[in-house]
């Protein structure tokens, strides 16, 4: 397996969408959010974050898929940010 790529599971928080994907480690988390929001037709009115469930760690949009953030076989979850509460 190439060291410049990583294979992981990506799922939405409501678990209605899930995929095993292989991506270059140079890719950024923001690229994953953008691509999966588009392919999975997720609401455009939400902000999303990505959490590595295997390692209990939120990934920043500017993070790349480096070895210390994502390992082969990890499960990442695309989570809508909950930003309401006052109305």
């Amino acid at each position, binding site marked *: 397996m190439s060291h410049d790529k990583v294979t992981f599971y990506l799922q939405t928080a409501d678990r209605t969408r899930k995929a095993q994907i292989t991506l270059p480690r140079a890719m950024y988390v923001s690229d994953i959010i953008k691509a999966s929001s588009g392919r999975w037709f997720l609401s455009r009115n939400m902000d999303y*974050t990505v959490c590595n469930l295997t390692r209990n760690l939120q990934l*920043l*949009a500017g993070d790349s898929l480096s070895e210390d953030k994502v390992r082969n076989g990890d499960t990442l979850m695309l989570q809508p940010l909950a930003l309401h*509460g*006052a*109305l």
Partner: protein
Amino acid sequence: MPPEYASRYARHHLIDWWDQGRLTGARILVAGAGALGNEVIKLLALLGVGHLLIVDFDRVEVSNLTRSVLFREGDIGAEKARTAAERAREINPEIEIDYLVGDLEFDVGLGVYRKMDVVIGGLDSIDARLALNRACLRMGVPWLNGGIEATLGEVSYFDGREGACFECAMSPEMWARRNQRFSCGGLRAEAEEAKVPTTATVASLIASYLVNEALCLLHVDSGRNKEGLAASQKLYLMLKPYGFYIYDLPRNPECLAHERWEPIAILTERPQELTVTALLQRLDARESALELGFDLLTVMRCHRCGQEESIFRPLERCGLTLTECPRCHAATRLPETLCRLEADSDYADYTLAQLGIPDYQVVTINTAGERRHVQLSGEYAP
């Protein structure tokens, strides 16, 4: 039987680690008195947290009644903060509850935050969270962020001193979405807020976690280790399907929000008693500048007909309708702003209150790049 066992808090005293005295002496600021705030305030009142300050600028609407336990139909149109405070006093008349109808960034002095044991945010926008986050970081106060959507919610704990903060996780997309609310001149676009699906069940659950986190924090002072979330952790709760996740929030090394303001000198004079010149003289800092910490709109000037209007308000609080000229009726007025004043500036003879500085604000004096922080109005005593 010891008298505490006959008190309102008798069942609390039966819990071996419980410190009701710590709760009675605690000060908590609740930012936002909507769906989350109502539940948070209710729980804090029931628990007997001694001093609450409720901040909200909004008024009760009919759609709030499905999620807001403290509001009734007769409250529609009333101020949320005042109404919530009145109802919480009915729940527990033994505690002190203050309220402030206003903006948590511009109407609450940082010296108020500084005196809080913990701040709980049940807010509705990224903007308000960014403001609360910066206030708490500057004053070194722990804060809890709550947020809800239709069937999910989250709670984050930021300790106000180290680790990640709310702003650390801001993505370029979030900044872009936040900035859409402002024109290029900095005036607020007056778009109607999107209607968000939420329910009382998710609000109640997330509020319970928020208040439990506050309880954990207050009991740290009683010699216990913090239970619940560690600093810079987020709890993410899903109701459909059920899911419960706790994970770490990484600190973003490029985040600009991590700025602790200390030491802080205290002046007893109030903002309405001091002009900029008088403040700089009082501090023996005549060659220095007062940094407002925000863009103050001073004048709207029409570049077509020359009409001008003096307006002293923070730019962020002013809407795009101000660009419309009342004389030539074109949207051709532009804002003039300032964010720092020296002793010989145009507006140096204005009082600090006229410049939009509230009681207990901590202002920054910049002397050749060296900054010092001064709190007005003395110490805040709830």
